[in-house]
C-alpha cells in the first residue's frame, strides 16, 4: 500500500487530494483488462487506496480527485460503492467524468472529416486505425469542476490532464472564469508542480541531494492556493524532504517543451512568466503567471501494437570484465545472425560503464564487474522469443566469470506505440455523472 496519500490526508491540513494514475501506455493495458472483464479497466490500486483514506477524508471533508478511472471510471465508482455499502457508509457522493474514450468512434470521426493524423509525423490514421488499442481525449479541469459543484466527495475520471486535477478545485473554490487566463494558468502550473510525487519536494533533486532531510519520510508537495492566483508550494510539517527555490525550479523544468506555450485543454500557460519567492521554511510562493487563450482542440492519445522487444542481462566479473562483456555481445550477435533471425534493432549497453551516458562515459581504470544488457526489437514474435533462448547458453559457451541469469529467459514484451493527435473540442463532450450511496 502506498503511504503517501494517507500521509497527505492525515499529517496536516489539506482540502483536496489529487492522484494521477495514467502513463501513456496505461490505457492500452486497461482496455485489455476491460475486454477480459467489463467490470475492470481502472487502476486496481485505487480501490484499496480509497478504502484506506476515505474515512479520514470524510471526517475532515477532504475531496479526492483522480484520473485512476482509466477506461472504466463507472466501474471504479461501482467498486467503491460496493465496498461502502458493505461498510455501512452513507451519504457518499461520487462523480465520474466520462466521454474521453473514443476507441469505438474512430471510423465515425474519420467519416466526419476529423482526420486524427499523427500530430508529430503528419501520417494519416489509416495506417494504424485497425490496430488501435486505446484512444482517449485529454479533458481538462472543467468536467471535474462540474462534479465538485454537484457536491461529489470523490471524482473519478478517465483520461484527464494531471494539471486539470489540481486546477479544478481552485476554479470551484474561487469561482474563476473560463477566460481568467492568468489565474487558470497559475493553477495549471501548480498542477505541473504537484504531478510527479515527491519531485518538487526533494525527490530526484540534482542541485544538492545530500541536503534533503529525512527523504525516507518525504512529504509530498502541497499547493496552497489563494483567490488572486498566488500559490504557495509547501509540504506538511514534520515530514521529510525539502521545498526550496531549487526543488521547485527543477520540477518546473520537468518534461516541458516550449515553455512559453505549455498547452493544456484549459489554457496555454507561459512558464517564462512564473515568479518564485521563498516566503518561509519549505514555502515557495509562485506569482505573476500569465496565461493565454486555450486552443480549440483537444489532444487525443492513441496506442497500438507495434512489435515486440526482449531484453536480457548477464554480469561479467573481474578480470577484463568489460572486454569479456563486449566479446559476449559479439558472440551473441553472430549466433543470432547465424540463426537467420531478423530484428528492427539490436542494442547492447554495458551497465556499470555506459548505459546512462553513452559516448560521454569515461573509461574507469579498472572495472570490478559490468552487466551486458542486450535487447532486440522486431515485429516477428517468434524471432524475439527465440533470442531469449540464446542468452543462457552464453554462460556455458562464452567468456568466463559470468553470472546473474537468475531471472530466467527474457520474454517478449509488446511495443505499445503512441499516436498523438488533435481533434476539435466541438466534436466530443465530457459527460459528468454524480451518484450517491
Amino acid at each position, binding site marked *: 500500500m502506498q503511504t503517501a496519500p494517507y500521509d497527505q490526508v492525515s499529517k496536516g491540513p489539506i482540502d483536496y487530494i489529487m492522484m494521477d494514475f495514467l502513463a501513456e501506455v496505461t490505457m492500452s493495458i486497461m482496455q485489455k483488462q476491460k475486454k477480459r472483464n467489463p467490470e475492470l479497466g481502472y487502476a486496481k490500486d485505487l480501490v484499496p487506496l480509497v478504502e484506506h483514506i476515505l474515512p479520514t477524508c470524510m471526517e475532515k471533508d477532504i475531496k479526492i480527485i483522480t484520473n485512476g478511472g482509466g477506461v472504466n471510471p463507472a466501474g471504479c465508482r461501482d467498486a467503491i460503492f460496493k465496498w461502502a455499502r458493505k461498510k455501512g457508509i452513507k451519504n457518499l457522493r461520487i462523480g465520474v467524468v466520462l466521454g474521453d474514450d473514443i476507441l469505438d468512434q474512430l471510423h465515425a470521426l474519420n467519416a466526419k472529416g476529423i482526420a486524427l493524423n499523427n500530430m508529430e509525423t503528419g501520417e494519416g490514421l489509416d495506417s494504424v486505425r485497425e490496430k488501435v488499442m486505446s484512444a482517449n481525449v485529454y479533458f481538462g479541469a472543467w468536467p471535474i469542476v462540474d462534479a465538485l459543484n454537484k457536491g461529489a466527495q470523490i471524482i473519478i475520471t478517465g483520461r484527464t490532464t494531471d494539471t486539470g486535477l489540481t486546477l479544478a478545485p481552485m476554479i470551484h473554490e474561487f469561482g474563476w472564469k473560463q477566460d481568467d487566463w492568468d489565474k487558470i494558468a497559475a493553477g495549471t502550473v501548480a498542477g505541473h508542480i504537484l504531478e510527479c510525487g515527491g519531485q518538487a519536494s526533494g525527490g530526484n533533486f540534482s542541485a544538492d541531494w545530500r541536503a534533503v532531510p529525512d527523504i525516507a519520510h518525504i512529504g509530498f508537495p502541497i499547493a496552497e492556493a489563494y483567490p488572486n492566483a498566488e500559490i504557495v508550494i509547501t509540504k506538511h510539517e514534520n515530514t521529510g524532504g525539502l521545498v526550496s527555490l531549487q526543488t521547485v525550479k527543477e520540477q518546473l523544468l520537468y518534461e516541458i517543451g516550449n*515553455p512559453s506555450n505549455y498547452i493544456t485543454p484549459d489554457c496555454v500557460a507561459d512558464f517564462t512568466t512564473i515568479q518564485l519567492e521563498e516566503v518561509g521554511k519549505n514555502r515557495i510562493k509562485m506569482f505573476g503567471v500569465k496565461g493565454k487563450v486555450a486552443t480549440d482542440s483537444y489532444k487525443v492519445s492513441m496506442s497500438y501494437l507495434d512489435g515486440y522487444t526482449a531484453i536480457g542481462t548477464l554480469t561479467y566479473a573481474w578480470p577484463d570484465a568489460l572486454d569479456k562483456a563486449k566479446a559476449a555481445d559479439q558472440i551473441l550477435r553472430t549466433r543470432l545472425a547465424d540463426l537467420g533471425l531478423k530484428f528492427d534493432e539490436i542494442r547492447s549497453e554495458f551497465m556499470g560503464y555506459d548505459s546512462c551516458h553513452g559516448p560521454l562515459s569515461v573509461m574507469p581504470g579498472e572495472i570490478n564487474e559490468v552487466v551486458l544488457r542486450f535487447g532486440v526489437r522486431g515485429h516477428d514474435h517468434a524471432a524475439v522469443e527465440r533470442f531469449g533462448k540464446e542468452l543462457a547458453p552464453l554462460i556455458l559457451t562464452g567468456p568466463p566469470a559470468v553470472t546473474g541469469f537468475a531471472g530466467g529467459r527474457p520474454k517478449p514484451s509488446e511495443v505499445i506505440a503512441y499516436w498523438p493527435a488533435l481533434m476539435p473540442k466541438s466534436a466530443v463532450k465530457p459527460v459528468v455523472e454524480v451518484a450517491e450511496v
Partner: protein
Amino acid sequence: MKRAMRIKLLDIAHARSGDKGDTGNVGVIARKREYYPLLTKYLTVDRVKKHFEGIALGKVERFDMPNLWAINFLLHEALGGGGTKSLKNDAQGKTLSSAMLRMELDIDERITL
C-alpha cells in the same frame, strides 16, 4: 587566446531531464543569479549538440527562461524511439540531466565557485 578558467557545468548549474516520446528535455538551472549569463553565453545549441553527439540524433532546440535562471533544451531522437519501443536502459532520459552537467566549459570570465 587563453581562456580564463575551465569549469564543469556541474559547478554552476543543476538540471532535470525527462521524456516526451523520442525527445528528451533537459532543463539546466544556474545555481546563482550571476551564473545565468554564463549559461546563455556558452550553452549554445551547437555546443549542446556537439556534447550529445551520438546520443541526440536529431535537432537540438533551446528555450531561455531568465525568470528561473534556466534554459530548457529539447534533444530530438535521443531516446531510441522512446516509450516501450526503446531498448535503452534510460528510455525516459532521466539521466540526460547528469550527462549535460558533465560538460566542461572554457570561459573568459573569472568566477568564484
